[in-house]
């Protein structure tokens, strides 16, 4: 098990989410736990709270998990999923305000260095103009 921060990618499209995860793995290999999810409960474009919770579980690290999202519903559903986690896990999962592909790659690169969750989030969010 890696002690590094885990990365979860949440897109409306499973293809986008999986593709972004491929790019992350190419960068960091197995040094960082990575999971992705995309699509609604019927397999159409959208996001799913239970699927996001599963992805968080898959990428779980005691150092925490950073979630990268694409559009509005992915963010809202991710925030909802975080609130539905057990109390002690909630504080260790953050949703990053960053572009999904670039954010995931740079967050994972930072995580691979052993950076704490707060720094992983900060580095990813530097990609978004405030």
């Amino acid at each position, binding site marked *: 098990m890696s002690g590094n921060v885990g990365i979860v990618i949440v897109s*409306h499209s499973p293809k986008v989410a999986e593709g972004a995860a491929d790019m992350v793995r190419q960068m960091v290999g197995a040094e960082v736990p990575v999971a992705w999810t995309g699509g609604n*409960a019927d397999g159409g*474009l959208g996001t799913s709270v239970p699927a996001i919770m599963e992805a968080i579980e898959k990428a779980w690290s005691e150092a925490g998990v950073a979630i990268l999202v694409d559009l509005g519903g992915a963010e*809202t559903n991710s925030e909802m999923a975080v609130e539905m986690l057990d109390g002690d896990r909630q504080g260790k999962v953050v949703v990053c305000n960053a572009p999904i592909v670039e954010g995931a790659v740079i967050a994972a690169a930072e995580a691979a260095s052993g950076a704490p969750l707060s720094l992983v989030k900060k580095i990813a969010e530097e990609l978004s103009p405030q």
Partner: protein
Amino acid sequence: MVLRAEEVRRLIEATAKTVIAEADRLTALDQAIGDGDHGINMKRGFEAVLADLDGLAQKPLPDAVKSVGTHLVMKVGGASGPLYGTLFLTLGKELPAEFDRPAIAKAFDAAFAAVKARGKSDVGQKTMLDVLGPVRDALAYGVDNGWGDRIKQTANAAAEATVPMKAVRGRASFLGDRSIGHMDPGACSSALMIGAIVDCLESGAA
């Protein structure tokens, strides 16, 4: 008032069926200014609610309302899932088992605040809040003989009032000025649900 099991059932069933019956219209509104899935998503959520109707009807109303919220969170799949989920979860949390219309107003006020926080939005941004806000105010106005009609008219007029608004939140905001001239789909679904709930309460279910 305390709702009996068959009244809880009727209230939830009427709300779900109203949304499902209007799913095509909600989707058409969303195709105009969004990603075109609002009706489909809400239908998926409320079909999950209907599938659990027997279980929901066995619960006291506040617990049943909370469970409706959980179904929507788990099934809807778009931003409307957590938004409507938060609305119903908060209503259920705030409503006492024995409630009157002032208690509905108080619970609704809390639910409105929770949806605002969930969506990081406020009234005036062409969203469901543009219906929930005026309805909250109408509920806070008090209880009189015209209670039901007043709430419904407020909701419908508020949904209509989103037509000339420019979206600044959600997918519709990507369209900028082109979002003007269409009713917000979330405002529409909110008005539909509020109408169905008020009709049920006024028809003697409570």
